[in-house]
């Protein structure tokens, strides 16, 4: 075990806030009733679920009855896309998405494609951002869904969601009534101020464990009036959109995390961005031959994605891990085949840069002196790996 440990992988998951853990622990013991039961124990659990639902709804400016709790972001994305497309299939079988979606969106689209749906995957260009005019050009009479993430999980680029939402409304007013807009906001919730009415989306995906709550709980915002086919059937829970006994402790934890995210939004944002900016400034001064991936302005404030020339991301990741520093890379080498990050490749960068990309994501529990430590460790690791790299030979 290294002497010091620094967690800079807050986009993968966040440490559980002790206040959230305490609320959850209380719910485990005190709200054990089945929230669907009519007796007092059940109603006590139901009340806890309702309180949490209000908090989660408030985080994105939604109404309480527009929130469907799920087991996490992946399930919410499956429910949103599959559920809506199954309900809307009689109106058309075309979906528009981007080329940098999370696998839980890209995978659902690919599976629908195998079943005969047409998928348009929009490019993101060098800055990692979808162009609204490309979305407009891709809409056809048979398009029933646009699904584009709010912010990317690897490079943090913020997509023009409100502009796409406005486009969808325009098309509806022009007569295309069966067109819906979903956004996977797992990375954006709690990092950006989001309001579903301002965004103009019909469906929005959230995950609690990116907000200092535990894994196993997420939610889908479903605008009132939007019809979905439930993907979990066999129960009346969540207004028949997600059958299964409610995970009351998880839901309570999500509610507490949502409340804290709203109350502490300004201080968390300022803190994370100050650390990220300081880190980037120092790295640029101390390490040559690096490329910052994605738009420099329109991106999440807590995340930095950097490609290091001449070296491979996984080697750097494990070198950092040996010194107690946790980061992530989008590339994976397995069974002799390499899968460079599809997101970095979508930016049009060469394979070497795509292989050498590392994501550093900061969080509320990181301290300034940790950044100094990470920089020292990183500088040493990059020097060591470059000294070993045949790519530095002329």
């Amino acid at each position, binding site marked *: 075990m290294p002497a010091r440990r620094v967690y800079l992988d807050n986009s993968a998951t966040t440490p559980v806030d002790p206040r959230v853990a305490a609320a959850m622990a209380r719910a485990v013991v005190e709200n054990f009733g089945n929230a669907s039961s009519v007796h007092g124990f059940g109603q006590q659990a139901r009340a806890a679920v309702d309180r949490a639902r209000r908090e989660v709804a408030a985080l994105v400016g939604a109404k309480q009855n527009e929130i469907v709790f799920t087991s996490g972001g992946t399930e919410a994305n499956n429910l949103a896309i599959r559920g809506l497309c199954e309900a809307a299939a009689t109106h058309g079988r075309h979906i528009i998405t981007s080329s940098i979606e999370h696998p839980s969106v890209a995978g659902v689209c690919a599976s629908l494609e195998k079943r005969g749906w047409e998928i348009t995957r929009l490019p993101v260009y060098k800055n990692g951002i979808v162009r609204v005019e490309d979305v407009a050009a891709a809409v056809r009479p048979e398009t029933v869904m646009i699904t584009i993430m709010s912010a990317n999980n690897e490079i943090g680029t913020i997509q023009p969601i409100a502009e796409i939402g406005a486009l969808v409304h325009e098309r509806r007013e022009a007569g295309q009534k069966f067109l819906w807009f979903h956004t996977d906001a797992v990375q954006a919730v709690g990092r950006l101020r989001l309001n579903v009415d301002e965004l103009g989306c019909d469906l929005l995906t959230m995950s609690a464990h990116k907000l200092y709550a535990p894994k196993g709980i997420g939610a889908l915002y479903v605008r009132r009036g939007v019809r979905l086919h439930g993907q979990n059937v066999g129960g009346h829970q969540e207004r028949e959109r997600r059958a299964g006994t409610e995970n009351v402790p998880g839901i309570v934890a999500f509610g507490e995390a949502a409340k804290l995210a709203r109350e502490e939004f300004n201080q968390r944002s300022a803190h994370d961005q100050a650390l990220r900016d300081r880190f980037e400034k120092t790295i640029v001064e101390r390490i040559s031959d690096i490329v910052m991936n994605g738009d420099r302005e329109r991106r999440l404030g807590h995340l930095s994605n950097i490609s290091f020339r001449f070296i491979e991301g996984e080697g750097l990741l494990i070198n950092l891990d*040996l010194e107690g520093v946790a980061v992530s890379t989008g590339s994976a080498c397995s069974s002799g085949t390499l899968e460079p990050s599809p997101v970095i490749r979508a930016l049009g960068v060469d394979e070497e840069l795509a292989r050498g990309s590392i994501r550093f994501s900061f969080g509320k529990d990181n301290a300034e002196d940790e950044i100094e430590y990470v920089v020292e460790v990183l500088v040493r690791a990059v020097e060591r790996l470059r*000294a*070993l*790299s045949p790519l530095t030979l002329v």
Partner: protein
Amino acid sequence: MVYSAKFKDHLAHPRNAGELSDANAVADETNPICGDRLRISLIVKDDRIEAVRYLAYGCPPTLVCGSVLTELISGKRVDEVKRLTRADLLGEIGGLPSRKHHAAALAIETLNSALQNL
């Protein structure tokens, strides 16, 4: 599978890294599928590996296989070195996940190429 202590040690402290300017056998091989690359330079004298250096680009097992291989062959007779197999190298490292065995294959292949260039 968790990497062995030896694996981690070689990753953090690569042995015999670099190039030999007066090498009499050099090979530079690339795995055509994943792009991992290994370069070995040797000084072979009186049928013995007198000096060895390596450079590597790729996933951690590729970096470590290069480092461990250089220790394994340093000072050895050429006929002994020629008998080394991927399994010998994997055993020396303390094992690798099966999906990473290609790293050991690349190391042995590069070594054999270098010896053929003598």
